[in-house]
């Protein structure tokens, strides 16, 4: 009896002796959350808390110092009727073409070409193409401001080939200023997009291309049938990153045009800065920032959904 009892107990007890029972903390359902706590604290302190405060500020009329007045949603209602703000949003959407769409299209073609050719010194060229990403945007902006200036490199080049009619102060002409700023974005983002796509393409097994070629596919068919579907994930990532960059552009505009000429290159980030620090309308500035955050969020959720659904 006794032996059978101990015999039955033994398997339960032995492992218990070798491995101490997990503590009450470890068994608790809250344990996983303890693991994310350190990361969450940092994230909360530096991302969520400021975001929450910005949302709160946006409900007040406040100069950035002194007392404030609660105005509810009036800052948002004012934005709806604010021509400057609407122009800023429209400009940001146009910048998406320059920051995301053009780099993606050109990057796809370039990456596909690069993948096919076995270029010597590939690493060097990759570095060169990626270089704009490494340079501080302020430096990029100062350099391009020189290029675009009335006596800058671009106009000198146009004059050298006899296209004097095209010369202008690129940043000072309302017809070209936004495109000029946008093109700087294209130049900056191109390298990033191309590198992402190249790394995606390098994972495609060579056999697939071989099989396609045996079936008589030409380079264009190969591209659409194999390369493009294979890098869909990279395309999504590239689009998300570059669209965020386009919508939150600040430094390029601040350093090149200050939103001018007139208001033709103003963007939401610049509006937020301008309202907070020049007009001292912190509530309105926060409202702009919150709307911008939502816009970025919605567009990128859309992009990710489309990217994942078809993959």
């Amino acid at each position, binding site marked *: 009896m006794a032996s059978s009892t101990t015999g039955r107990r033994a398997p339960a007890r032995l492992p218990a002796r070798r491995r101490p029972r997990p503590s009450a903390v470890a068994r608790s*359902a809250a344990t996983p959350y303890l693991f994310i706590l350190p990361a969450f604290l940092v994230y909360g302190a530096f991302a969520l808390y400021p975001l929450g405060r910005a949302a*709160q500020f946006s409900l007040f009329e406040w100069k950035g110092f002194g007392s404030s007045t609660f105005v509810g949603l009036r800052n948002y209602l004012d934005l709806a009727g604010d021509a400057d703000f609407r122009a800023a949003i429209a400009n940001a959407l146009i910048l998406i073409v320059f920051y995301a769409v053009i780099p993606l299209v050109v990057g796809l073609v370039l990456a596909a070409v690069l993948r096919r050719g076995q270029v010597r010194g590939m690493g060097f060229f990759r570095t060169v193409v990626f270089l704009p990403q490494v340079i501080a945007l302020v430096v990029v902006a100062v350099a391009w401001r020189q290029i675009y200036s009335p006596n800058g490199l671009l106009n000198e080049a146009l004059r050298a080939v006899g296209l004097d009619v095209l*010369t202008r102060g690129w940043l*000072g002409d309302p017809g070209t200023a936004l495109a000029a700023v946008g093109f700087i974005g294209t130049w900056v983002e191109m390298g990033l997009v191309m590198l992402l796509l190249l790394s995606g393409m390098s994972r495609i097994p060579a056999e697939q291309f071989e099989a396609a070629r045996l079936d008589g596919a030409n380079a264009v068919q190969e591209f659409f049938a194999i390369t493009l579907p294979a890098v869909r994930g990279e395309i999504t990532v590239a689009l998300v990153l570059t669209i965020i960059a386009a919508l939150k552009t600040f430094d390029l505009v601040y350093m090149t045009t200050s939103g001018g000429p007139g208001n033709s290159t103003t963007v939401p980030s610049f509006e937020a800065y301008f309202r907070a620090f020049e007009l001292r309308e912190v509530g309105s500035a926060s409202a702009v920032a919150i709307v911008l955050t939502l816009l970025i969020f919605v567009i990128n959720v859309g992009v990710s959904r489309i990217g994942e659904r078809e993959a």
Partner: protein
Amino acid sequence: MRRRNFLGSTAALGGLGLLTACAPGSDGGDGGSEAPAPAADEVDTDIAALGDITLTVWDQEVRGAQNDAIEALIGSFQEKYPNVTIDRNSQSFDDLQQQTGLALSGNDVPDVLQVNNARGDMGTFVADGLLTDLTGYAEAYGWADRFTPSVLGKMSYSSDGVTFGEGSLYGLAQTGEVCGIYYSQKKLDALGLAAPTTWDEVFSLVEAAAAADEQPIMLGNLDQWPALHVFGPLQANFVPAETIVTLGMGNAGADWTTDDNLAALSQLAEWGASGALGDSPNGLAYDDAWPLFTEGTGVLLIGGSWLGPDMEAVMGEDLRFMAPPAGADGKVATTGGTGIPFSVPSAAANPAAAAAFIDFITSDEAMAMIAENGGMPVNRTAELAPDSGVNKDIYEAFDAVSTEGTLLPYLDYATPSFADTAGATLQEVIGGQAEPAAAAEALQEDYGAFTEGS
């Protein structure tokens, strides 16, 4: 279930935290009543007795001549009071201006801070009680003997910040500024013309220069504000000085849409359209434009006196400066006034030493030191004028305008948003995107909304 509870309670806690967090700025006090305003007999002027202190000074005197002058003054102040160490933080005007609001609302404020005279800056801070009323110090140190009332007026507000131009003193400037016309003597000689004595001569000079394939006026207006320094003097040719002062100080009673203002805007538009300001003034940066002028592009450059020393370093005796010809009143009137005033924040740790420093850098000896270093002192200007060079022209012009004519306020003093409104509008006038009438409407809308609201 448990997980949902955890998430739910986290969200609830977060939401509660947000709701109960104090309203923005509610701990910052509520208005002008708190601003210190020591009377003259309460003021402490014995700085040597204060013990070892560090005086924090934030300034924007970064351009060559300005920087040399302030460095020299700081050196001799420390020699005079070995117990005071000055911790200087200098940055560009734009950078300093953006930080001023944040800096003043914090607890760790500088002792001396340069605050722009404009309503959007000094006026707002005065209204919120963030600056020390210096009237008592002015009396103790006798500042009224040094400065003319009109200069002191440009740094005075009523204590509620509503009236600009009178009331209490909230800052003191050490330099003067005047916008005028720079010209290259060689280019005028080549055109066979003398320096213009009337605005009509300026206009015909512009035409003559264009006919000779020279760019008549150099302007870099990518930054939006430089055109204000061209339009200010030009406006005085069409509009009575008194009206411009009312418009520029944001006091009620004037109108941007009058015929004379329209004529001034039309003249600017004509210069823009005819290429008198260059092919693309809106595409050229201010700090790229004046070096181009020194290298020989442009016959005239209409701008501030602060450019003189740096341009002279390249152009030498070829560079000349003149106050604009007499304006609509038959008297000379042009944009100008004081440099950026030095103020003492309400929360400054060492207000007595701060006031002594401001007294020191605006003393008669300091004026001489500023002149020696190539800046333009706000007082004693005529007697300190050098014997030759562009600064002789500049000093004489400033003296003539401040004693015989009118120093017009910078137009962006008018309302908190006027720098942007006027900057963008003048850009569009020059670029031809806005008709003068529409531009006048835009300017009036800003000015009108502010003056009716106050």
